[in-house]
């Protein structure tokens, strides 16, 4: 029997969920083809705001990666917008002419942002907020700073405003109504929200009716927004976030019945029996939908419908909303308008910024608004959905489940009492039963594993506490959410504990540490020994004897091991400068030792690859004669200081960037650090040395030296944070050395500067290095002291015979006799 063909138009969250449920129940029932107008996979649209605010990357919000489609045997056509449906022939056609025939068709064309048709709405610089392309466009606009006007003070508009503010823009929100988010919040909560956003520097104008968007004089974009009362607000970017409308055009063109959206019955069937529709494009009993929970409910119905299974169908139920602006906790659910027969319970603590309001009807909660403390939102919402009679617990109801009924102060009891179908994660529609069964069936003991398997708390994360409580309930003592992450399997102590105890107990050798801190193994492992060796080198620079057997081979051999067991060698070129003499010496070494590959590195150095280990000391001897020392390209230590040519040559240079780079490198080379440290000095803000993605960078300006830190351009990409501006080279060097010393003393082994700085807080780093002169001086002095013992060229030592055993084989044997 040939499989039935299912064609899906649209690749958003709703059809994604429907297919997931379909495959879970009957993986082989359909041949599935998806037409996606967007050129990408299915991602979590709810999380666009965190992407805009820089808290997540696109990869982190992907729901189904390419692999999922492959594994499920789904044909995903990216960038293929369907333009027509031929219901008689049962085919669909894309704008590029791809035709697919179907037995069942699922329309999920989503919604379109509403654009207010004021003059100027079509100017470049006017954006909507709907998909990743909009976010990308906003991020691009935000790069040059400037002013943004967001039209619309609803959920999306406020998230966009907060995100753009976070990205450094000057933001004004225009809202037509008197209070913000009036559809989800009552006036009191709306005011609290307004105050919180204004405190963050977002300007808010309510009862603002946009009249016109004015073009810039050169026609390149927008200049301002004019209101009906004549006020003009300057703007370089205008974001319209006033709402969405169902995208029912395709269905309408095909003669399927539509109203505001595609009309569906409770089984998500359209007027054509072979065509289903779901998501934001549908209209059900006069309602259209924009929040994820009902869409996921529709998805479950569609999956069962495709399998001809009986089901209760979709039912319109109360909805809950959360605002995803970090630091603003807001939750609303149900219907909270005033009315006859309605009562309310209100808790207001203005100083703490907490506001809670429950709306009751017939002793049942029908509406919830929480501001400032939203932890109980899910529980209240459950009571709304269950239509629980709250008469018994009314006295303490507002304090949430911890005090409801007789189980005062035990949050676990409340979670335990939830039914299996209670929704825990609203973003991803995950209920209690699914989480519990995943934990038990798959033996999950870590929060990240539960996230990976169920998606619960994997999006906005506000239900993390609930998920942890469920894990605790299910696993008992086996789950400890506060457990410190131990360094490795040899100990229960964390990196921080070990570093502290080494200092407090004055532990000065690895065996002493293992003994005093009760290591579980006799001599540690490949994870903890290099870490301990570094901590001891850092803490006792004059006393500790470096343990080479606890160093990774690269640091033991002072070269980089390659996949075939040969090594690569990178000589130091101060600040990336070299000379004909140095280049000639390198050329001679390459010829003499028959070195197969010579490569220029990203850090402005020359790498010689494919050198036999036995040859290393001889290679170094030759390089040393030309004046080269080790480039430490193998070290968890200072690697390179990249520079541009600065005032020496460049017509834009503001300072001697090459000279400063060389000085920094000569001062700091040889220092060991928790992980590698790469630096750069750029001679002007054009930043040709790419200083703003380095661990430490300097951008020279007319007035001095802007010091940057905590950038990354590897596994993660991250622009630097600004440490501060200093006036002279000497100050720059002192600040940089102090910063690196602070990191040397606090970083966990293998933790790069950007991770360390994020962990302890960028402001804390600035406070200690920029603002506290005494602290800075102390760090600086300790760095200078440790350099006395560190600045010994390891290559010349080994070229003169140190550690011979490391480089020579012990013996060569034939079959007959020893040699």
């Amino acid at each position: 029997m040939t499989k039935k063909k299912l064609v899906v138009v649209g690749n958003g969250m709703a059809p994604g969920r429907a297919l997931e449920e379909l495959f879970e129940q009957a993986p082989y029932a359909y041949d599935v083809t998806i037409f996606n107008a967007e050129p990408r996979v299915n991602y979590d649209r709810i999380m666009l705001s965190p992407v805009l605010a820089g808290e997540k990357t696109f990869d982190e919000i992907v729901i189904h990666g390419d692999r999922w489609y492959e594994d499920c045997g789904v044909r995903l056509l990216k960038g293929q917008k369907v333009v027509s449906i031929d219901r008689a022939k049962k085919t669909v056609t894309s704008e590029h002419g791809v035709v697919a025939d179907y037995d069942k068709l699922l329309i999920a064309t989503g919604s379109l942002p509403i654009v207010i048709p004021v003059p100027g709405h079509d100017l470049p610089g006017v954006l909507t907020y709907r998909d990743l392309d909009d976010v990308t466009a906003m991020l691009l606009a935000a790069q040059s700073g400037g002013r943004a006007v967001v039209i619309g003070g609803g959920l999306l508009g406020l998230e966009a405003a907060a995100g753009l503010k976070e990205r450094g823009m000057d933001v004004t929100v225009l809202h037509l109504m008197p209070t913000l988010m009036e559809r989800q919040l009552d006036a009191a909560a709306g005011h609290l929200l307004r105050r919180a956003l204004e405190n963050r520097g977002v300007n808010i104008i309510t009862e603002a009716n946009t009249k016109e968007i004015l073009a810039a004089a050169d026609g390149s974009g927008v200049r301002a927004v004019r209101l009906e009362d004549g006020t003009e607000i300057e703007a370089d970017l205008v974001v319209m976030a006033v709402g969405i409308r169902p995208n029912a055009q395709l269905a309408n063109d095909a003669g399927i019945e539509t109203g505001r959206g595609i009309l569906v019955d409770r089984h998500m069937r359209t007027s054509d029996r072979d065509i289903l529709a779901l998501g934001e494009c549908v209209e059900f009993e006069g309602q259209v939908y924009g929040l994820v929970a009902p869409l996921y409910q529709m998805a479950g119905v569609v999956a069962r419908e495709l399998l001809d299974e009986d089901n209760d169908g979709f039912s319109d139920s109360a909805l809950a909303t959360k605002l995803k602006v970090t630091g603003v906790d807001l939750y609303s659910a149900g219907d909270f308008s005033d009315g006859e027969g309605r009562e309310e319970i209100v808790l207001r603590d203005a100083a703490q910024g907490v506001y809670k309001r429950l709306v009751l009807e017939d002793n049942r909660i029908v509406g919830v608004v929480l501001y400032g403390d939203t932890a109980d939102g899910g529980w209240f919402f459950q009571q709304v959905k269950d239509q629980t009679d709250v008469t018994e617990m009314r006295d303490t109801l507002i304090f949430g489940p911890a005090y409801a009924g007789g189980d005062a102060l035990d949050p676990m009891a409340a979670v335990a009492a939830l039914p299996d179908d209670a929704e825990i994660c609203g973003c991803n529609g995950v209920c209690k039963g699914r989480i519990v069964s995943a934990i038990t069936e798959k033996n999950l003991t870590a929060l990240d594993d539960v996230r990976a398997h169920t998606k619960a708390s994997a999006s906005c994360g506000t239900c993390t506490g609930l998920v942890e409580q469920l894990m605790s309930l299910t696993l008992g003592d086996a789950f400890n959410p506060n457990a410190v992450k131990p360094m490795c399997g040899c100990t229960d102590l964390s990196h921080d504990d070990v570093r502290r105890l080494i200092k407090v107990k004055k532990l000065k050798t690895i065996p002493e540490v293992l003994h005093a801190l009760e290591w579980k193994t006799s001599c540690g492992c490949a994870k903890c020994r290099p870490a301990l060796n570094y901590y001891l080198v850092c803490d006792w620079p004059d006393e500790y004897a470096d343990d080479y057997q606890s160093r990774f081979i690269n640091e033991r051999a002072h070269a980089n091991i390659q996949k075939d067991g040969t090594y690569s060698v990178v000589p130091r070129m101060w600040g990336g400068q070299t000379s004909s003499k140095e280049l000639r010496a390198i050329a001679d070494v390459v010829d003499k030792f028959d070195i197969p590959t010579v490569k220029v590195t990203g850090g402005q150095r020359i790498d010689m690859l494919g050198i036999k280990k036995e040859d290393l000391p001889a290679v170094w001897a030759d390089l040393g004669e030309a004046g080269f020392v080790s480039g430490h390209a193998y070290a968890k230590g200072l690697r390179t200081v990249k520079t541009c040519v600065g005032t020496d040559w460049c017509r834009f240079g503001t300072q001697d960037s090459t000279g400063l780079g060389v000085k920094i490198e000569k001062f700091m080379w040889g220092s060991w650090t928790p992980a590698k440290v790469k630096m750069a000095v750029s001679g002007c803000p054009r930043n040709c040395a790419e200083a703003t993605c380095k661990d430490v960078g300097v951008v020279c300006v007319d007035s001095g030296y802007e010091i940057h830190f905590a950038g990354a351009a590897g596994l993660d990409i991250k622009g630097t944070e600004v440490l501060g501006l200093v006036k002279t080279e000497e100050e720059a060097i002192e600040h940089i050395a102090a910063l690196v010393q602070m990191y040397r003393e606090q970083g966990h082994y293998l933790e790069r500067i950007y991770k360390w700085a994020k962990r302890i807080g960028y402001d804390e780093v600035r406070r200690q290095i920029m603002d506290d002169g005494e602290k800075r001086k102390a760090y600086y002095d300790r760095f200078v002291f440790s350099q006395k013992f560190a600045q010994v060229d390891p290559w010349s030592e080994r070229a003169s015979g140190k550690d011979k055993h490391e480089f020579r084989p012990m013996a060569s044997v034939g079959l007959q006799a020893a040699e």
Partner: protein
Amino acid sequence: MSEGAAAMNAMSENWIAVGKLGDIPRLGSRRVLSRERTIAVFRTVNDEIYAIEDKCPHKEGPLSQGIVHDRCVTCPLHNWVISLETGEAQGADEGAVKTFRVRVADNGDILICTGDLAPAS
């Protein structure tokens, strides 16, 4: 292997000296080259000596360059942990590397059993 077994083998097969115990640092390794292969000879923290082929079962990484801990070595290329006693990969990884009989003579010579050095038949 036990001392007894080593002595038995010593009688029936040839053992050759490849160096002194002191040539290898504690928790370190040295290479011994033969025509067919490279052998990594290890010295543990308690001065036990082990010899295994210098070729990780994963991607042929040189195990002699790894970090030695207890009776294991961690491969420098991708951190597989190999038992020096059995040659087997530890943990979730699967694979094994050839081991060689080796012992330390009273005079501190490290001796390898030549019977094990022959190419695999």
